Every structure is written in C-alpha cells, then in structure tokens.
C-alpha cells in the first residue's frame, strides 16, 4: 500500500503540474501571448526547492506548509482513483465523503496558522478573505454533495460511483447539482471571479506573502496534488469515475479546461459580491436539484 501511495502521489504531482503548465499556456494563448513551456511549473518548483535559503518565523511557520501538504496528500489517498479496481481501495474504504469534506479544509486551516505565526497583516487579511469566501463557496458544493448522498443513501464514494454504472452519470441524472458543484469548483481552483484571497493588487499575494524558497515550493507542489485530488473527486462523483488511467486523465482534463475557460473571461469579484452571488444563483440551482431528489427522486 505504501508503494501505491507513493506512486499515486508522484502521479498527482506530475499530472497536476502539467495541468498548471497547460493552464498558463492556455491563458497565454487566449491573451494573445506565446506563453511558457508546459513544464514551467516544474522549473519553478525545482528552482524554489533549490533556493539557498528560505525565511522562517519560528516553528509554527515552519510546520504550516507541511500540515497543508499532509492534508492534501491525505485527501488524495481517500479519493478512489478507478472504478472497480483494488488500487488503494483498502485505504479508500476507510473513509467516506463527509471525512473528505473536512479533510479538504484541514490543510488551509493548518496553513492559516503558519500565516498568523508569520505575522504579516496582509497574509492574515488573505486568510480571512479565504475563510469568509469559504462560507459562500462551500454552500453550493455541500448542497450538491448532500444531494448525491441522499440520492445514493450512502456517504461511501465507491458506492456512489457504482450506482452510476446503472443509472448513468450523475452529471446527467442530477444536472442542477453538477452545475452548482462546478461553480464552486471554479472558486476552489482559485480562478476568477473568485480569486479573492491571493489578490496581488489588494493584499500583496495574500496568504503566500511571507513564504519563500522551499516553503513556497512545498505549497506549490501540494497545490498541484490537491488540484488533482479535487478533479478526481468531481470525476468520481459526477462523471461516473474512470476505468483506465487515460480515461481518468481525459475526464479530469475536460473538467479542468472547462474551469479555465470559465475563469479566464471574468474579472475579480469583491469579497461581499462573491459571497452574495454564491448565496443567490448557485445555491438556488443546487436547491432545485436537491428538492428534485427529495420529493420527486
């Protein structure tokens, strides 16, 4: 199992970074630029890992990025990768969707502690923006997840995946829930219009303000791993999982590119605008789907 976990982590690391390179490339092309190479994120992370020094404000600051990385790796472990294959299934079956929902927030909270210990007011402002945005951002996602759980009457992801073999993709069965979940996914990936926490024009690159060298590199790496985990989760919940690696890559890529195309064309909301928006339209869409499941499902 350990070997499988290491394999999984490396897969997520590579795929996540290539996706981010793709993200930068597509953004550049849409802006009429040539853009960096697709491996640019590797270069960045290796460069940062090999910086001569990295500033640290004490042990809590040191441990924060590590907690965050731990949280995302743990999240990755609890997300089943393939349909009916026993790859890491022994580990995945130890958890459930509720556990995953809370694990996804564990890392950011750990990092928030480090930012607070760093003592940069801009960083803390970024964290507070992030947590406040979370209030609005989680709502449509929670509605979608709760809808799926109620529909499947189980919080076991594997069970939800298996159900889709008979009923078809949840994305088609519960379209409202899928739309709601996708809207909050845009925010989870830090894409516009919800990229409030790290807004460089306002809060000086937000929570990452004080992080340098290996800490920043660690944050970037775990970000890519976490992104992959989130994509796989969406694929499992709504796109009926994947049978092979290629299928998985294809489906995750589809989701990712959709999110890029949504994010690229928008400006940034203010904090209150973002939460207000998320509490109106996406929540309404999600509630429609939820009511459909409860009373007409």
């Amino acid at each position, binding site marked *: 199992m350990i070997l499988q976990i290491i394999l999984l982590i490396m897969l997520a690391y590579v795929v996540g970074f290539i996706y981010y390179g793709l993200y930068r490339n597509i953004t550049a092309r849409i802006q009429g630029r040539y853009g960096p190479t697709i491996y640019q994120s590797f270069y960045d992370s290796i460069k940062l890992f090999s910086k001569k020094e990295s500033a*640290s404000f004490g042990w809590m600051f040191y441990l924060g990025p590590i907690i965050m990385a731990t949280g995302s790796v743990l999240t990755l472990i609890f997300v089943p990768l393939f349909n009916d294959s026993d790859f890491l299934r022994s580990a995945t079956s*130890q958890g459930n969707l*509720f556990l995953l929902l809370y694990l996804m927030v*564990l890392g950011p909270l750990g990092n*928030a502690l480090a930012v*607070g210990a760093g003592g940069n007011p801009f960083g803390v402002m970024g964290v507070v923006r992030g*947590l406040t945005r979370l*209030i609005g951002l989680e709502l449509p996602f929670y509605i979608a997840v709760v809808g799926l759980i109620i529909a499947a*009457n189980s919080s076991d992801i594997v069970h939800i995946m298996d159900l889709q073999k008979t009923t078809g993709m949840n994305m088609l069965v519960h379209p409202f829930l899928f739309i709601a979940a996708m809207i909050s996914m845009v925010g989870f990936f830090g894409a516009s219009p919800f990229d409030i926490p790290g807004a460089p024009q306002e809060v000086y690159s937000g929570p990452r303000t004080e992080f340098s060298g290996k800490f920043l590199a660690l944050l970037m790496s775990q970000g890519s791993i976490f992104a992959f985990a989130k994509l796989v989760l969406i694929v499992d919940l709504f796109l009926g999982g994947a049978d092979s690696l290629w299928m998985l890559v294809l489906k995750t890529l589809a989701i990712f590119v959709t999110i890029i195309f949504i994010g690229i064309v928008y400006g940034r909301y203010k904090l209150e605008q973002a939460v207000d928006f998320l509490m109106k339209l996406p929540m309404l869409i999600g509630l429609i789907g939820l009511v459909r499941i409860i009373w007409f499902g």
Partner: protein
Amino acid sequence: MNSIFVLINLLFIGFFYQFGGDLHVSVALTKEFTFSLVQTPLGTFFAYLSLVSFLLVTIAQKSKEVSCNYYVLQLILNVAMFVIVLAGDFITFFIGWEIMTWSSYFIISKSQSIDIKSLQKYILFSLASAFSLIAGMVIVYSFTNSFDFSVISNSFGTIPFDMKVTIVVLFSLSFFTKAGVIGLHYWVVDTYSKAPDLFSSILSAVMSKMGIYGLLLVYGKLIGYDELRDMFGAVLNGTDFGYVLAWIGVATSIIATFKAITQDEVKRLLAYSSIAQLGYIIAVIGLGTSFGVAGALYHTLLHTVIKLLLFINVAAIVAQTGKNKFSELGGLIYRTPVSFVMLLIGIIALAGMPPLAGFASKFMIYNAAVDTKFALILVGMLFSGAASFLYCYKLVYGIYLGHPTSKELETQKEVPVSYLVPQVILSIILVALGAFPGAFIKVINPILKEFSLDTIAYDSLGIMNSAVGSFNGLFVMSGFATIFVVILLLVLRLKSKAKNNLNRFDISYCGEIPTEKTSLHYGYGFGTELYRIKFVNAILKRSSSHFYEALAIQTKKTSGLFSRMYYGNIHNTMIIILLFFSALFFIGVN
C-alpha cells in the same frame, strides 16, 4: 484549601464508582412525595460528565485564590447536578434544579466584572425555566397522580392530546432556556462572559448539558419517541416533531455562529460558539432515531470536553495578562507555547477536523440527518460548520498568533501548571477519542436500549459505524501522523536552509519598516467583513434584546395598572374584588 476540595471531589467520584452499580435510594418526605435516586445508564453518563468536569475545574482553581464559601457553593452545585441526573422522580429532580439555580446564582454574583443587569437576566430566565418545569410537572401529576418517572412513562398514553402537547411545549421551553436556544439565549452570553473565568467553563460545559439531559429524559424516557411519532405525524423518514426541532437547532447554530465571529471579547465568542454547538445537539435530539440520540450524546461529551479545555485555557490567559479582548491580546505563541498547543487541539476538535475527536460526533449527527432524509437540515449544519472555521481561527489568531499589541505581552511567562494539568488531560481525551471513535459506542448502546431504540453496530475501537458509511479513526490518525513525519523529514533534508526566527518586524511590508507603533495585529477588524455581506448582515443586525426590553416595558405597565387599583380609594378596590369573585362563582356554577 484547594487540595482539600480536590480530594473531596476525588472521593465523590470514587464512592460513586465503588457503590454506583445500580444505585436505588428512596426516602419518603411525606406520604405523597419521596426523595428517590435511581441510577440509569443515561444518568450515570451525565453524572460522570459533571463530576469529572468539577474535579478538573477545581484542580485549575489552585493558583487562583478563591474563598472557602466559593468552594462550598461549587460543591453544593456539584451535588445538585448529581441529584438532577440521578433523580427518580420529579420532586427530586426539581429540588436539584432549584439548588443548582441558586448556588450558581451566588457563585456568579461573586465575580468582579458582574453587573446587576446580567445577574437579573440570569435569575429571571432560570426562574422562568423552573416555572415552566413545575407547570409541566403539575399537569403530568394531575393526570397520572404520580411524580415517579417509571409510573409516568407507563401511563403517559392516557393523557389527552392537547395536554400532551402542552406538556411537551412546557418541558421543552424549560430545558431550551437552560441550553440557550436562540431567542431564549438572552441570558447566556452576558452570564458566561461576566461570570468568574473558571466558572464559565462549568456553566458552558456542564450546566447547559442539564438542559440536554432534561430533553433526553422527557422525550426519550417519559414520553418516548414512538409516542412522539404517534402524536405528531411523520415527514420524509423522520417525525414532524423532529423536523421542527431540527430547524430550531440549525437556526440556533447558524445565527450563533455568525454572532460569534463578530465578537471582540474572548469569552463572548466562546459563549456564542457554545450556543451554536448546542444547536447541533438540539437539531438531532428530536429525530428519534438511534443515530440521532447517539450523535446528541457523543456531541454532548465532546462539547463538554472541548469547552472545558477552551474556557480553562482562556481563563489562564486572562489571569496571566489581565486582558480579555482580541484587540488587546496577540503574539503569545512563543511566550506560552504549551497553552497554544492546547488551544490548537481544542479548536481543531471544535471545528470537527478529522484527526481529532470532533469529527466523530459531527459524523454521527450528519448520518442521523441522512437516514431521515432531512437534506436541508444537513446542508444547514454543514454550512454552519464551514462558518465556524472563522471563529475557530479568530480564537487562535487573536490570542496567540500575530503580533503582541502591547509591551507587557512581550514579556509573558507560561501559565501556571495547575491550569495546564486539566488542559493536558482533556486534550489527551480528545486525541484518544479521535483515534478510537468507536470506544464511545459501548457507552451509548445501553442508553439506546433504555430508550428502546436499536443499538449501533460495533466492530472495533477504531471504527465508527453508521447506516450510511463508516470511517476508521485509527487509520486517519496514523496516516496523518505518518505522512506528516515523512514530509517533515523530507523538508528538513533539503539543502536550502531556513533562516530561523527572523525579527518579527522583518515582514515584507512594501519596503517600509514597521515599528512598535505600527498596528500589525488583525485582531480587532477580524470578522467585520461579514457586515458587508447582505445575507449575513441581515442576521447580525437583529437581536433578541429588543423583544425582551419591550416585554419588560409592557410588564411594568401592567403591574402599574394593578398597583393603581390599590392606591386608588378603597371602594373601587372592593368593587373590583367583588366582581372578580362573583365572576368566578358564576363560572363555577355553570
């Protein structure tokens, strides 16, 4: 002196453990009324809860000199709660209830920061709850001719329907007031924040749980969940009654969460968060499923542990620094590292983060909502859970992280050991329960049997089972620890050396150099963003105080009306009394 009372508490627990078994005391006060203690699994659970909490708080009181009669009052309160949770009939229950009210009243009045207004609030609401309790008792007695719980639970079905409803409403009101449901929480915040710092932990951790105990007693044992289902219809997979109660609980938890985020005083934030957490319990207590009751019990236990930990921690900090506002504290992490770690464990559990115990109870509560198909309830609970991260972070940031806001904070010592000992014990409990969430199922199952609900499957210590999924706490904990250590080792191995412990002013601050005068702590403005969000602002700007002030004014007016009758000339008074009695007479005749 302190050690004596610690010893007394220890002996109390020891005796209860020794001679507990199935305790059955019954003393006849009159030929009607008896004073009887009957030990049930539910009562035993709550008894241990309160006894241990009192012991820990008494230990913490060592370094904070309090007078002898304070200790005595606390002991009386302890005994009173013991009587309440083991009471076999309503007389005993009510005696305990009254003693609890008054002894706690005297203890609160000993605080320096208390003012008469909050004292009046406290006593008025306690009396109101006591009155509605006694009204319910009397109605029950009038139909069953007995105060004994067993007799009542057997012959409850004979009561007519409207009286049943009245009884349920009266008891619910009484216990909701104690637990501080939103709307009836008017006394909670002031009392918690102005009570003696260590006694606030008792108020939040134990006394509010007496309300929960009362609810479980009434719904579960006296009336019975099946009876409730028959009385009120069924919706989805649950009962109407449970649905209404769940909405009350969810509203409580959401509103209180948002109120908590915007507080500047530490203990007010904790008070609101305790209201919010009790909202979770009340949301599932009426569902009538075994997971509902189990989740309520589990959350009761965890909330007691967490709130004891947090309140003791905050009390230590307040005693050490003399400051109780987020805008005045800050930057204590490297001065009081142990307290920081304790508080960290506390808030991680409070937020329900997986490696620690907090998640298990939340998981049970969510499952209860799932298998009754109360989807909106579930969404609401998840939502308030997400919002509660904000006040958890505010709690730890405002006190320990950021920058010290004043000179004396920079030269703080670690808090006294007597404060740390209970915190360490409690945090060990939290970690252990996080690794072994299944351990508590053994405690819950007998209580479920007592409520004639089907028990929960139990595989092993590590695994928490439910109808709609399970998780392995041991696996999560060990996995977290392993991965954390591995990554830590990797990072330590890296070439790039960390410039450790930079000067705290060496932050990237747009090229400027902050000094002591620069305000770098974000403790005060924290949470004011919420006022700009329309939906949240709509919640925040409302307050129950308007209603109660209006009520007070009306009461004054009516009482003034009555008094005018007597201050007027005697004839009018006589005439009015005459009319009154004649009216009674006619009613009696017809």
